[in-house]
C-alpha cells in the first residue's frame, strides 16, 4: 500500500475505533443547533430565517473544537517525530490527516445537517442548499483548523486557543457558505456565484493550510 | 371484521410503524451479530489454551 493510503487508513481506523471521537463533532453540532431555539424561542418563521446561519456556525464550531487531537495525539506518543522522518513530504502528511479527519468528523456533520434543518423548520430547497454548501465548505474549515492545531500542538491545553486563532480565518468561508444558502432560497440572487467562491476558498485553504501547518509542526519540534 | 380504513393520512401511520419496526429489527440484528462475533473471538482465545483463573470452579465477580 502506498504511504499516503496507509496513513489515511490508519487515521480512519484511529478515529472510528472506540475512543476515537469520530461522532463527537456530529453530537456537538446536534447540541449547538438544539440549544438555539431555547434561547431564540420556538417561532418557526424566525428559525427558518436564521436556520442556515445556525447550521453553518454549528458546523464551524464543531469542526474547530474537534481538531485539537489532530496532531496532539501523535505528538504525545512520539508518532509525529516518526512521521516527520518519512520520505513523504510533511505537507502531504498534513493534507491526508486533514482529509481523514474530515471524513470521520466533517462528513457526519453534513449527514446530520438535513435532520437538524428540520428542527430549524427549513423547507427542502433551503435544506438542499445548506447541505451542498456544508459538503463543499467543511473541508476548508478542517484545513484552516489544522494550522491552529499545528501551532498549538506543543501546548497542554491548546484546543480552545487553536479555535480562537483560526476563527477569524474561517469568516470568509462562513460568509460565502451562508450567502450561497440564502441565495438559493431567495429567487433573484444567483446561487452559483457565492458557491464557486466558496469552492475557490476551499482550494486556497487546502494549500495554505498544508504549508502553514507543516511549517508550524517543524518549528514546534523540540 | 372490517379492515381498518386508515383515512387520508395512511402514509404517515404506516411510516411511523415502519420506523418502529426498522429500529427494533436493527437493534436485534446488531445485538445478535455483536454476540456472535464476541463468542467467536472468545472461542478463538480459549482454543489457544488461555483460561480465566478458575473460570469453572469458584464463581468469580465480573473480571
Amino acid at each position, binding site marked *: 500500500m502506498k*504511504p499516503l493510503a*496507509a496513513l489515511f487508513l490508519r487515521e480512519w481506523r484511529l478515529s472510528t475505533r472506540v475512543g476515537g471521537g469520530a461522532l463527537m463533532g456530529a453530537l456537538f453540532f446536534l447540541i449547538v443547533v438544539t440549544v438555539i431555539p431555547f434561547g431564540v424561542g420556538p417561532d418557526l418563521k424566525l428559525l427558518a430565517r436564521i436556520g442556515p446561519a445556525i447550521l453553518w456556525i454549528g458546523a464551524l464550531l464543531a469542526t474547530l473544537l474537534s481538531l485539537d487531537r489532530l496532531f496532539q495525539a501523535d505528538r504525545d506518543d512520539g508518532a509525529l517525530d516518526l512521521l516527520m522522518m518519512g520520505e513523504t513530504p510533511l505537507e502531504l502528511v498534513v493534507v491526508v490527516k486533514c482529509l481523514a479527519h474530515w471524513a470521520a468528523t466533517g462528513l457526519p456533520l453534513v449527514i446530520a445537517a438535513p435532520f437538524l434543518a428540520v428542527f430549524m423548520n427549513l423547507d427542502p430547497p433551503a435544506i438542499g442548499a445548506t447541505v451542498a454548501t456544508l459538503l463543499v465548505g467543511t473541508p476548508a474549515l478542517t484545513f484552516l483548523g489544522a494550522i491552529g492545531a499545528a501551532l498549538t500542538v506543543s501546548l497542554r491545553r491548546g484546543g480552545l486557543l487553536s479555535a480562537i486563532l483560526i476563527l477569524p480565518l474561517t469568516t470568509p468561508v462562513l460568509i460565502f457558505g451562508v450567502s450561497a444558502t440564502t441565495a438559493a432560497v431567495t429567487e433573484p440572487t444567483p446561487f452559483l456565484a457565492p458557491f464557486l467562491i466558496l469552492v475557490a476558498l476551499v482550494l486556497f485553504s487546502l494549500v495554505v493550510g498544508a504549508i502553514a501547518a507543516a511549517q508550524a509542526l517543524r518549528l514546534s519540534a*523540540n | 371484521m372490517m379492515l381498518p380504513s386508515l383515512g387520508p393520512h395512511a402514509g404517515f401511520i404506516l411510516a411511523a410503524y415502519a420506523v418502529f419496526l426498522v429500529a427494533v429489527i436493527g437493534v436485534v440484528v446488531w445485538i445478535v451479530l455483536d454476540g456472535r462475533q464476541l463468542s467467536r473471538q472468545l472461542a478463538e482465545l480459549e482454543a489457544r489454551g488461555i483460561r480465566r483463573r478458575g473460570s469453572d470452579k469458584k464463581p468469580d465477580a465480573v473480571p
Partner: protein
Amino acid sequence: MRLAIESLSVERGGRLVIAGLTVAAKAGTALVVTGPNGAGKSTLIRTIAGLLPLAAGSIRLEGGDPELTVAEQCHYFGHQDGLKTALTVKENLAFWRDFYGRPALSVIEALEVVGLEHLSELPAAYLSAGQRRRLSFARLLISHRPIWLLDEPTSALDAGSEVRLIDCVNDHLVSGGLVIAATHAPLTFRARESLALGHVVAEASP
C-alpha cells in the same frame, strides 16, 4: 558510508547544549555516545534525525543516497514508542512498513525476531512496557534505512530482549549499516567507538 559531523552546535531551550562538535561515524561500527544527563546525548541524536534545527556546523552522510536527506535515511528509536493503543500489534507495524517504504523484513518476520508474533492480533493497549519497546524496535527491521539512531535502547527491556537487540544491531553493522547509540548501559556491540559528551570540547576518543 560515513556520517561526518563538523563543528556542530545545537541550541535547546536557549542553552547551547552542543558546541563545536566534530565527529565521524563509519559504517560497520557503532558510535556509542555517553555522558551525564543533560550532556546533549538525546539532543545530538534528535539533531541527526532532523527533528532539531542546527545552530551551526553540518551533518553529512558520505556514500548515502544523494536524493534523500540524512533524516530520511535514519531510523529513530527513542524513549517514546510511537505506537497507537487502538491499533493491533500487526496494524501498527504494517503501517510503518507501508509509510516508510523500502521494505526489509515482513511484519510477521519482524515480530518473530522480537518475540511478539503470538500477539499480532492483540490491540497494542494490552502490551506491557517491555513488549511495547520490542514492538517499537521491530519498526527498525521492517524497512531499509542505513543509520540507526538509538536513544537508551535497552531501557525497559529484560535480559533476553537485550541480547536479541544487540544481535540485531550487530547484524545491521555486519550488513554495512551505521549505528549511533546514546546509552549508560555497557552494550557489547561487535565494533564500537565511544564519544563522551559533557566536556567543553568533545573529541572522538578511539
